[in-house]
Every structure is written in C-alpha cells, then in structure tokens.
C-alpha cells in the first residue's frame, strides 16, 4: 500500500500572560497575533494568567473581548503564586502566617537569584506544563510576549530543554525605561544576564518601533540581524465598519466633542491636557466643547482618584467640580470602541514618554478618520506612523497655548470635514491593520519551523 503522509499544521506555544479576558493595554496585540496565527493554519496553544489574578489583583476583565478569541486556540492558564499581591491574612500559608520574615526572605531570594519578577512562579509552571504537552505532541515554535518578561525566561528554558526554537516579542521595553530613556536596571543586575542569554539564543526578537529596535541592536550587536519591527496595528474586527465617509461633516449647531480613548496613567501630561482644553474652550469655535475621557484611569482601581484630581475632575465619591467641559465616561469594551469614535469629532492623542513610545491606540485613532490632536512630548516614536496622516494636528510641544491652538485648528478641521479628506485619512490607516503588520511575523515564525509543515491560510 502506498501511503503519503500529509504535512501537519505547525504548532506554536504562545506565552502571553495578558490574554483575553484581561483588559491590559497590551492584550490586543496578543489577541490579534494568536488569532492571525490560527487563521494562517497554525495550531495555537496560548499560556495566559490565571483568571483569579485578573479578578482579584487587576480588578477588571473584558468578557466580550474573550469572545473574539479564535475558538481553535487552546488557552491554558498555569498557576501563579500571588505572594506579592496577597493581602488577605486568611489566605497566607501556615509557614507565612507563623514565620512571615522567613517566608518573605525565601520569596525575595527567588527574585534576586533566579528571576527578578513576581511572575516567576507562573513562568516555572509554564515550563512544566509546556514540557508535559510537548512530550505528548511536540511544539514547533515558542513565541513569548512581554511584559511580564518571565515569559521570555520560560521560552528560553523550554528551548534549552527541548531544542524548540523561540522568539520574543518586546511589546514593552524590558531593560530600557522608555519614559526616562535610560537603562531600567543598574549594571550587573540579574535582568541584564537574562536578557543577554535570551537574545543570544532567540531565533527572532520583535520590537514595536524602530527606535526601540535600534536601542537593543546597539546593546546586543550579535543578535541585531535577528531583530525585527512589528508595529502595533488596529483591529478591523473590533473597530467595526465605522460610518460611511459620506457622513463626515459635523452638525454645526452642536458643540464639538473631543475624546480620549485609552488608559490615562501617571506618565502622561494630564495637567497640560486639562489646562489646554480649558484655554481652547474660550475660543468661539470651541464654545461649549466637551472632552470625554473613555477607558481606565490608571492600571489599578486605587489609581483612579488621583488621576481624577489631576484632570480637574471631582472624585466620584466627593463634591462635583466646576464645569471644565471634561468628563470621565468610564471603561469601554473593546467591542464598543467603534461607537465612541463615531460619536467623536476630534481625538486627543495623550501619551507619556517620547522617543521610544508609539502607543497602540494611535492606529485606531487614524482608522477613525478623525482629526487628531497630539498632547505629548516632541519626538515621540508615534510620529513616524502619524507622518502623512492628513488630519494630524501636532503642536510639537507641551506648551499649553500651543496645544490649545492645535485643538482649535483640529476643531475647525472637524467642522470643515469632507468625505474626500476622511477617505484620505482612512486610506493612510489601512497600511496598519493587524493583518498587514502581523504577516511578516507569521512568515518569520514559519521559517523557524524545522520540519515539513502545511502552508497557507485556513478559513476562519
């Protein structure tokens, strides 16, 4: 009997701690990568954080986002020790309850001698589970995304123990403090040793913009030829079809609506935004204009009150503030963001840091075809993708008056919008769909597979 063996689907292990239903800002890249790989015929297994960690420590999940994960993806959730976050004394082990000093020392010893992150236990559990799964049916490639960077260490360890090639996706910088633009760790720190060995052995390392790639290439020249840039993109399936370009013009009788969508955090020039908007509203064109903040204030519930104050808003539990035109509209499910954009006339691109920061949100902003006002330090990496966007209003400064003038100009552009201008703006964004930006990564991963595999995309 003459039997021919069909090449089987390539199998990938994707180490992505933040994965839906997490609502962490980096989760969309992970979701899109896993979905794209599944659509391209990969057998995808994702290792993600325990659900209890999302509920108890992070404090929020987006269940509707979880529904957008391709059902062919197998999601495993290795356990994580919550030693660093646990506050409930009843949940302390007997050892920690009776000997908290020794328990703390033992825990810190692991961080100082093994891996300097609280997610170490998750990485160790991931390695154990990966080895068990690999023994039953082998993986062809391991892809890890950070943060947390313990996932990189897990990928490296799996590679050392099994020989499976691996790639690391620097969704964030690890040893570079992107906001202060200097090394995040002192010389000799354990993180440098880990990063050196990971980049030495990784078949590919991926960065979100060219300045970041260049910083790493300079530090690790022997690995530079295996480094690549995969920018963040926008997700057409979450964004929706949007309104037709014919509906471009803004109702001239109602005040303009400015919107920020994303996570407000302490690195962003929040005060400058609030002050500039207050000044811009004095202009007749922006009379009665509103600025709606959609999304989360900080990464943890405890951050909300401080950021509310910085925005000039009253604490939810406190007295109402004066009318600044700024209001916090709360979190938005990723599946509802299309409606937020449709209801906005101008988008405010508020970002912290500078040279190394792109921000995933900017791609979606561009896809909306709305005027965008920049509120960030000059020289931010996001300028590379915004360059050529016809509705970008960049004060190129954090001067409050300059920002206010840009807001006024953007407001005018919203009033004067034509279908043609909006179509041009959206055409610029089309180059940054997730599919377009992820395709080179998929090709690189496919090239890493050592045996014969099936090729081509599968219907989703």
């Amino acid at each position, binding site marked *: 009997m003459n039997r021919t063996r069909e090449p089987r689907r390539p199998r990938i292990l994707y180490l992505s701690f933040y994965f839906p239903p997490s609502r962490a800002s980096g989760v969309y890249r992970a979701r899109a990568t896993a979905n794209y790989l599944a659509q391209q015929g990969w057998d995808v297994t994702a290792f993600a954080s325990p659900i209890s960690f999302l509920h108890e420590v992070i404090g929020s999940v987006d269940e509707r986002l979880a529904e957008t994960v391709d059902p062919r993806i197998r999601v495993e959730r290795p356990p994580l020790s919550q030693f660093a*976050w646990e*506050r409930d*004394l009843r949940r*302390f082990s007997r050892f920690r309850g009776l000997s*908290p*000093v020794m328990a703390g020392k033992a825990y810190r010893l692991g961080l100082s001698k093994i891996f300097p992150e609280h997610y170490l236990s998750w990485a160790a559990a991931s390695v154990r589970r990966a080895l068990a799964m690999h023994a039953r049916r082998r993986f062809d490639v391991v892809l890890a995304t950070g943060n947390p960077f313990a996932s990189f260490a897990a990928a490296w360890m799996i590679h050392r123990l099994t020989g499976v090639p691996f790639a690391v996706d620097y969704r964030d910088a690890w040893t570079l403090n992107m906001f202060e633009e200097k090394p995040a760790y002192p010389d000799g720190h354990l993180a440098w040793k880990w990063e050196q060995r990971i980049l030495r052995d990784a078949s590919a390392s991926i960065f979100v913009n060219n300045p970041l790639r260049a910083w790493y290439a300079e530090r690790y020249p022997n690995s530079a030829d295996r480094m690549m840039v995969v920018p963040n993109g926008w997700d057409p399936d979450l964004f929706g079809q949007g309104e037709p370009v014919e509906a471009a013009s803004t109702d001239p009788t109602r005040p303009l609506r400015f919107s920020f969508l994303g996570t407000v955090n302490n690195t962003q020039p929040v005060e400058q935004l609030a002050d500039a908007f207050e000044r811009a509203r004095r202009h007749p064109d922006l009379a009665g204009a509103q600025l709606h903040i959609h999304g989360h204030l900080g990464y943890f519930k405890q951050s909300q009150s401080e950021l509310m104050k910085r925005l000039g808003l009253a604490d939810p539990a406190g007295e109402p503030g004066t009318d600044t035109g700024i209001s916090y509209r709360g979190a938005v499910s990723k599946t509802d963001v299309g409606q937020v954009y449709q209801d906005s006339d101008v988008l405010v691109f508020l970002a912290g840091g500078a040279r190394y920061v792109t921000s995933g949100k900017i791609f979606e902003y561009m896809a909306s075809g709305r005027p965008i006002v920049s509120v960030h330090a000059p020289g931010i990496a996001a300028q590379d993708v915004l360059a050529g966007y016809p509705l970008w209003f960049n004060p190129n400064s954090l001067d409050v008056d300059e920002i206010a003038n840009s807001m006024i100009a953007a407001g005018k552009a919203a009033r004067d919008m034509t279908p043609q201008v909006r179509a041009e703006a959206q055409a610029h964004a089309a180059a940054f769909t997730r599919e377009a930006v992820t395709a080179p990564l998929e090709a690189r991963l496919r090239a890493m597979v050592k045996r014969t595999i099936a090729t081509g995309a599968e219907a989703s």
Partner: protein
Amino acid sequence: MTTVRENSETATATAGRQPRVLLLSFNLAPHDRVIELATRLLDQGTRVDLLVMDDAGWQGLAGRPNLRIHSLDGAERRHVVMRAERAAVFRGPAAVLTGLGKLTGERPVRPLVKGHQRAAGAFHRRIFMKSYAAIRPLVLSRLFERRLPALGIDDVDVIIASDVLTVTLGWKLAKRFPKAIATTSLDVPALPAAN
C-alpha cells in the same frame, strides 16, 4: 498594591453597633501611612484598638475618643529568649570578668572587659538579632495573646496587620474572629456607617 477583593469586601458588623478595628503596629517608629489610616478610621467614628510595642510613636493620637492603645511596655525584653541571651552573652561573662578583676586587680582585666563588650555587642547585632528576627513575630504574637483577655476585645470587624512583625498575630486573630476582615492592606476598609 492592594488587592481588589479586599476593597470590595464590607465588614459584617452588626447593625446598630459601632464598627471596631484592631490595628496592629509593632514598628517602633510607625509609618506615616499607618498613622494616617488610624486617623481616618477615628475621623469616621470607628472604634480603634491599637496594639503597639511602644506607644511613644503614637502621642499625636493619644486622647482621641474611640481610641485605645495597648502597649507591650517592654515585655519583649523580659521574654525568656531575650533574658537567656543577655545572661549568656552579656551578664554571665561580665560577672566572670568582674570576679577575675577582684582577684587580679582591674588593670590586667580591663582589655578583656573591653574585648568582651565589643564581641558581645557584635554577636548581639550580627548573629542573635538576625536569628531572633525570624521568630520575633511569633514571640510578639504570644506576648499579645496572653494579654488579649484583659483587653476586652470580644468582637472585631477588621484586623489590620500593618507591618511584617504583626502578621503572625493578625493571622492567629483571623482564626479567632472568623467573620472579621483580616488584611495587611493600609487602605481604609469598607465599614458600615458608625452610629
């Protein structure tokens, strides 16, 4: 960081009763956040029982209504472990050297006395205290447990262990008061309104 679960919990205080918090703070110099927490609890009308090693760091709150401060008043120094160390490392050798001085005169013994003081001090700081630190939360929890019946703490809504030395006592009290929130969080817990 505080976990969200705790913040969302509300103490199950009996309706009509003033909420009661047991705040444990064994650091000799209490952290500003702990003092601030105690102040905010008192401001909102909560009864606070404060268990401390020494009340010197809490003078700013002394006399506040609804606040009771329970101090160990040096009981730790009288604990058998501390007494044994003092006897074996300081007093015993010092007594021997004193006796030797009486026999031989002070002058030849003086270098030995100085050497002993240096060695005993170094042993106390570098070896004894480092070892003792491991069992210190247990020692302190036992000292306070003996005093608890006299303190009249028969019900409590929240137990807050504010530093690592208080964890063992807090962990044990969590078992004694199964309905109370027992936490290391320094955020103001959700409590029913005081009457």
